[in-house]
């Protein structure tokens, strides 16, 4: 999951924190980091995620944001 760029992308519920997902009453933002080699073009990956998540979003406007592209091995950097 992505963590946003300037402001941390996360949802807080009680003592629990879910990183990479921002839920508001109207919107749902999912932040992801894509990793090489890409199985399909980036818009397709994002659209697949959106299609899967949107039915569970309770009518919220669903957005998928690709925060970063990562090459395997970059994680520790």
């Amino acid at each position, binding site marked *: 999951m992505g963590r946003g*760029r300037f402001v941390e992308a996360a949802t807080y519920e009680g003592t629990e924190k879910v990183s990479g997902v921002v839920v508001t009453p109207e919107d749902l933002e999912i932040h992801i980091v894509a990793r090489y080699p*890409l199985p*399909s*073009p*980036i*818009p*397709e990956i*994002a*659209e697949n995620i*959106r299609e899967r998540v*949107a039915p569970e979003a309770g009518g919220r*406007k*669903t*957005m*998928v*944001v*690709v*925060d*970063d*592209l990562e090459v395997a091995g970059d994680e520790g950097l």
Partner: protein
Amino acid sequence: MRVFNRIFMILLFAGLFVLGVYMVVFAFDLFDYKLESLPITDYANALQGFVASVEDGSLSVATQALLVLLAILGLIWFVAELRPSAPRRVRMGSGTYVSRSVIQDQVSMVAEEVPDVLGSSVNVKARRSPGAQVSLEARVRRGEDLGTIKSGLQSTVRERLSEKGLPVSKLNVKLVEADPRQTKTRVQ
């Protein structure tokens, strides 16, 4: 505009705060400052005279020019405020976005893989419509064939980004001749 507005409002509120402090000090005659000592009547008379000359139409040319300038500045500010701010992320499709930094990194990576390019700097702007507006400045050696490098670079960047599905609606390439000793890469 948001940053400008914030700075403006901070300065305005700071000014109002200082004026408020002065008002309290003068109103209660604190530290030997008295309200009567302020030249309020002079200002009031000057303002009255100015308003009267506006009504009479007897303003000097310089004052008229200043007022027109102020009106134009106000109009420009008003239009600038009405313009919607540029989106932060680049739109790919309906509900799917990519951060500008992703496109910036990819363009920079592809540009620096081109043999004639010694270094690059990339600026990405998001637009309301899908696709990013990319400005790429590439540094090349002096005496190279700039036209060929530019068209090659443009097509390479477009091709490589479209392979990954990263949307670029406008790509401006600017080549700058540079000394290889001062660039990121000396030899490709």
